[in-house]
């Protein structure tokens, strides 16, 4: 049996703190984050937050920064950038330069929230591409949600093609696809095979032996642990991984080594 005789070192690349404005029941209070990580045996987590209003993303990043400072051996800032500039005098590129100057280790594009919010798009002529270019120059890993593909979810209006185009345009920049679920696997598998800088979190790969099967075809190097909390229960990804039929080495890569390597690529 390919079990391990020691606790895996688990790093979580996808942990949202505070209200998500997607689910009224499941959310994580800021003062409970470390306790929760302890319960799940998660050593370190990249934490993100979202905010409402034009400067919501600034407030969210300040909250994350404060939280990281309070437990910097456990928490890594998953800083966010909006996908639209809110003032005529500002550009997304400037936001990116400011974040990079502050030494971020990864970036998550976060669309506005609320019923009237503009959706997040990644089209060819979008201003966000200038910002992505800044992140790419500094090899800042980019975190992108993909769970909305083909669902018509109004917050996100980009699909696999847009991500693949960005991945090919910036091949040195790691792009971590989060919240992909088992229904999308055919599409995501194709993307992972075509673009070697794409990585996928495992929590949504919930079918029987799906994780083992994908690792066999694509390699453990391309998968990372991301709980997707609070939209997803972190225990699911943990149980799926630790009780999988993968080797101890493969499990450890997915549990933390891959994420550590990806975050280590940032030149910030």
């Amino acid at each position, binding site marked *: *049996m*390919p*079990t*391990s*005789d*020691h*606790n*895996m070192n688990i790093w979580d690349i996808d942990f949202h703190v505070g209200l998500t404005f997607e*689910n009224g*029941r*499941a*959310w*994580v209070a800021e003062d409970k984050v470390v306790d929760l990580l302890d*319960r*799940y*045996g998660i050593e370190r987590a990249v934490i993100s937050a979202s905010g409402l209003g034009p400067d919501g993303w600034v407030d969210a990043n300040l909250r994350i920064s404060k939280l990281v400072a309070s437990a910097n051996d456990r928490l890594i800032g998953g800083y966010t950038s909006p996908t639209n500039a809110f003032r005529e005098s500002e550009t997304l590129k400037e936001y990116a330069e400011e974040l990079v100057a502050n030494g971020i280790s990864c970036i998550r594009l976060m669309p506005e929230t609320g019923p009237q919010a503009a959706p997040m798009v990644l089209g060819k002529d979008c201003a966000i591409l200038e910002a992505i270019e800044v992140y790419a120059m500094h090899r800042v890993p980019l975190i992108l949600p993909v769970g909305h593909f083909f669902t018509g979810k109004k917050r996100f209006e980009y699909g696999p093609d847009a991500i693949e185009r960005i991945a090919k345009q910036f091949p040195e920049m790691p792009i971590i696809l989060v919240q992909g*679920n*088992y229904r999308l696997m055919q599409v995501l598998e194709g993307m992972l095979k075509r673009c070697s800088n794409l990585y996928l979190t495992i929590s*949504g*790969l*919930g*079918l*029987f*032996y*799906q*994780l*083992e*099967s994908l690792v*066999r*075809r694509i390699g453990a190097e391309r998968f990372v642990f991301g709980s997707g*909390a*609070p*939209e*997803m*229960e*972190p*225990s*699911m*990804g*943990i*149980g*799926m*991984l*630790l*009780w*999988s*039929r993968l080797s101890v080495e493969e*499990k450890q890569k997915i549990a933390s080594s891959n994420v550590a390597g990806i975050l280590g690529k940032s030149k910030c």
Partner: protein
Amino acid sequence: MLDEAIRARTLRGQPIDSCPVFDVHGHIGASRDSLVGEIMDSNCDEKFNSVYVNLEQQRGISWPRALPLLMEAMNLTGINRMVFSHLDAITARTTDIYFKAHREAEEAIWFTEKRLLGYVVYAPHFVESSLTQLKRLKESSSGFVGVKLHCEVHDVRISDERFNGLFEHLKDYPCPVLIHAHPLDTPLEIARRAKSVPDTTFIMAHFWPGEHMAKFLTQECPNVCIDICASKTPLGQLERMVELVGSSRLLYGSDATYLSLGAQLAKVTLADLTQAEKEAILFQNASHIFSEYLTR
């Protein structure tokens, strides 16, 4: 402490060995490489060998459903017992396929020496065949211990008259019924059916009817329980459900070989629940519901 033991074993990826985990929601399915079709015509030694030959073949399948890998996953996680239904019986397009799937299910029960027990699938499109298959429940040698309804796949709501024959049968012969509800089924419709056969225990699959209505349904019907498997579960849902309906009304189910067995089990083993609550969900409630079948 059981709680610390199962948490520690989960985080080491070791099988849970401190309690006899009972999974009330499993599946097997045939494929062209399937084990079950082959062992029906084999003697015991050949059957044993074919399991392991086929185990390797099964690894080449991107979403395997056959018995060998289910048993392997049960051993990896430490699942002691499972009640399952055959996927082909649920998706059968003809009565031949429906009966063949149940024969294969019996083979699996026999082959695992009743570590796996079976649900008879009641297929509302094949009422006569389903009523015929239900008779196997009364034969202790068959290893069938309950009934599975998949109202969503069959696209037949629980209130539909095609289920009346089943409920007549349950009046004479109450047995556990696992229900995957139709998207349009309501808690009131389920309650109406559940109240008509109070000696039958109903297990609502996949946390149905969810956090908003679970308390209503379980208070209204003492014979309704809820299983916890779901492909997507928000953080803390199990804990909130325990608060709403009590741990005595929740059952561990994995939905393997549809869903990952480990992902569903860790929901309980790593939950913020007491030892007693975890024990209830992992095996005590199911052992009680299926008690009369475990000894026969």
